[in-house]
């Protein structure tokens, strides 16, 4: 397609502009999207030199000296450039394309989904170049390489593959590049989608890459030798390959004293066990083995269930469904209505359900313990994955009792251990990751 054809095609859009400029000595034509380009840059780099230029050849020299300005061949297609905010400058016989893209939302945002108390407070921005800047600023090391990619057949979303060349595993890097090559989607919007596009299996449960909005987590992982993908239009970065521990660690762990952070980590694992196993244990104990508890406690459980007419697994499913619906609703609702949802939900899940004899009061405590423990998981994608994990266990518990719960936990452990991530193990007791922040110890054998 020749340049003229392209321009004819683009002229259908009202924000595409072709202006002829004339300074009395010669003429040029500027074609660009007004919505994509920064007028100030066009004025400074194209219009101003044009005004002062004596003749066409002098202007050409000026353009050649300008930053990010390329001479186009006659048969080159300027379309991709134009779509990314370049200005096409046309003479009678030659064309140049000059980068004048307007930065999108390039202010670093406040960290909202991964809070720390005393760590850095700003997250990434929605502009990928700013994000790369933030990364480089915090990781001023010459081995840091950023490779540019355009992902998505239509969206051509700008992305950077960032890694520390000295530390990262060449095999992992090769695999990551191959995965990016194979992406077939039309549009790439967010890093979560990118993760889905990069992994081969469709049946994914646990996240195998960390999605983070924190620059400090990104540079920590770069120093560990991991690969980071920054994507334009989202304040999140993708870190690969991840291991299970990454999802249970908050950045605060590195900013706290040793004993405090270790205790917090242990607490998180206990919370993880509670959120996975508690509903199933309730079903198994109440329906199969109430004799496990000491007599007084077994009686008080039975007493609180006295008004409930149906088996424990129905009770559990009602309450779990309500709490999941409440979480999902408060996530999607506009914040004005959101408070109504929590109030109404709190009332129902709190006293009313128990007074009506729908559920026992112990079940309410269990439901809230499960929900609260779930929120302890620092990385959002993992906490979503763990929300699912309790349902198979409830099913096993209602069919086989405690034996089913223990078997289910065993199967879950084996499932997670069996996962592989870039050909590396995902979950081990001792992973032997290098220590870069004094946080993870290396384990040699």
């Amino acid at each position, binding site marked *: 397609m020749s340049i003229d054809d392209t321009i004819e095609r683009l002229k259908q859009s009202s924000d595409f502009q072709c202006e002829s400029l004339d300074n009395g000595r010669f003429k040029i034509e500027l074609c660009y999207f007004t919505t994509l380009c920064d007028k100030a840059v066009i004025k400074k780099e194209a219009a101003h030199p044009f005004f002062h230029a004596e003749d066409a050849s002098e202007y050409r020299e000026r353009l050649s000296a300008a930053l990010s300005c390329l001479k186009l061949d006659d048969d080159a297609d300027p379309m991709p450039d134009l779509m990314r905010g370049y200005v096409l400058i046309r003479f009678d016989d030659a064309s140049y394309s000059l980068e004048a893209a307007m930065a999108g939302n390039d202010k670093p945002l406040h960290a909202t989904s991964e809070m720390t108390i005393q760590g850095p407070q700003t997250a990434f921005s929605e502009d990928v170049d700013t994000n790369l800047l933030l990364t480089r600023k915090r990781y001023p090391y010459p081995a840091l390489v950023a490779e540019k990619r355009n992902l998505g057949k239509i969206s051509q979303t700008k992305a950077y593959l960032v890694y520390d060349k000295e530390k990262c595993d060449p095999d992992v890097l090769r695999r990551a590049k191959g995965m990016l090559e194979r992406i077939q989607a039309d549009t790439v919007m967010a890093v979560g989608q990118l993760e889905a596009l990069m992994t081969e299996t469709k049946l994914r449960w646990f996240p195998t890459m960390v999605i983070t909005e924190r620059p400090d987590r990104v540079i920590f992982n770069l120093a560990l030798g991991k690969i980071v993908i920054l994507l334009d239009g989202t304040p999140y970065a993708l870190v690969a390959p991840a291991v299970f521990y990454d999802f249970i660690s908050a950045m605060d762990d590195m900013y706290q004293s040793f004993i405090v952070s270790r205790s917090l980590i242990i607490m998180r694992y206990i919370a993880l066990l509670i959120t996975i196993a508690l509903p199933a244990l309730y079903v198994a104990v109440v329906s*199969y083995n109430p004799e496990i508890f000491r007599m007084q406690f077994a009686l008080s459980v039975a007493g609180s269930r006295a008004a409930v007419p149906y088996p424990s697994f129905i009770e559990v499913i009602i309450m779990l469904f309500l709490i999941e619906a409440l979480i999902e609703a408060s996530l999607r609702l506009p914040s004005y209505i959101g408070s109504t949802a929590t109030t109404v939900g709190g009332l129902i899940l709190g006293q009313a359900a128990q007074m009506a004899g729908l559920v026992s009061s112990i079940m309410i405590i269990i439901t809230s313990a499960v929900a609260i423990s779930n929120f302890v998981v620092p990385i959002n994608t993992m906490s979503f994955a763990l929300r699912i994990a309790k349902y198979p266990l409830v099913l096993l518990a209602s069919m086989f009792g405690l034996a089913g719960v223990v078997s289910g936990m*065993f199967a879950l*452990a*084996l499932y997670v251990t069996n996962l592989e991530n870039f050909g590396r193990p995902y979950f081990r007791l001792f992973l032997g990751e290098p220590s870069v922040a004094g946080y993870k110890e290396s384990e040699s054998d």
Partner: protein
Amino acid sequence: MTRYYFYFFLICMLINTIFFVPRILLSQRFEGGIMAMILAVLIGSALALTFTKALSQFPGQGLPEILTAFMPSAIRIPILLFLGIMWGVAGSIIIITFSVITNRFLSPETSPEFLLICFCGICCWASTRKSSAIISVTEIVILLNLPIVAFIMYKAYTQKYFEWDAVKVMSDYTFKMPSWTLLSAATYPFTGYINFSLYNRYFKKLKVAHQWLIPIVGAAVLFTSIIVPIGVLGVTGVGDYLYTWISTADTLRMQYGFIERVVFLFLFIYIGFSLLFVTITWNIGIQLILECLPKRLKKVKRGRTALPWIVAFIIAAVTYWAGIVSNDKGMIGSVKVWLSIRFDSEILFVLLMVWMAWKRHRERRSEHG
């Protein structure tokens, strides 16, 4: 590397000192049971150490690869098939017994067949996972449960009703010649090392430090498995129980614990251990049997193949059928037969390994010299 060796040693030790071995030993406690244990510590450790030494000649190689180098397929395939079935049976025995135990002590309302389906299904799925994952999950299960096992043992030894006199009575019956069945039962707990004949593939070099721990830990666990039931249930009383250890654990209580009866804690741990043990043995069994099949069958489609599933399903189905038709009395009889076959074949297998290691060693020497 060392730690994985001991995980497999421990899992076999812990599983077998609970199920049949104490029952067989205790049923003949006056006819050489004690002597069998003393001899077993010696024989079992000797076999373990010899095998480990022999296997260190073949770094990173599993049994199928080693056999291929030394014998034609006409001999190799029957050996592999036999060993694969032996491994499969080892797991099946545990799973059948454990479904009976779970039914009797944990959920009497559920039928044992139904529990057997649950365990068979999970082990069938689990044993087709990657071996490396199974090795790691062994580490997780063992390290998480070992403290609880230690706690239960501490509770058992320190409980008020533990009768040391009963244990002392047993010393009168030490010097009696044990039967072959007794000896083969008593050596079974030491057999954990044998899993390395396949899992050696996943380790670059089999170098086990602290091998002196094998006889010491082995003797400690084996004698505990006999002494505690005798001390708690009495010299004659101990013969009245079918599942000696579960009944022994049921004598313990945790006065201030959330769970009052220790037996539940004990059962939870042992469900985990049993599933793990069955997963390991079936995984090895499946791989050994698959090695016998001709290459053209093992076509891999998009990184996955249905063959392990088929073999696992066959093993699980046979186990389920055996679990339904067998009763307790028939079970212990066939286990005794199986244990004797196992002991004989274990000795032959270790000798075979020694022979192959010696040959390999000589080849190496002639290459260098």
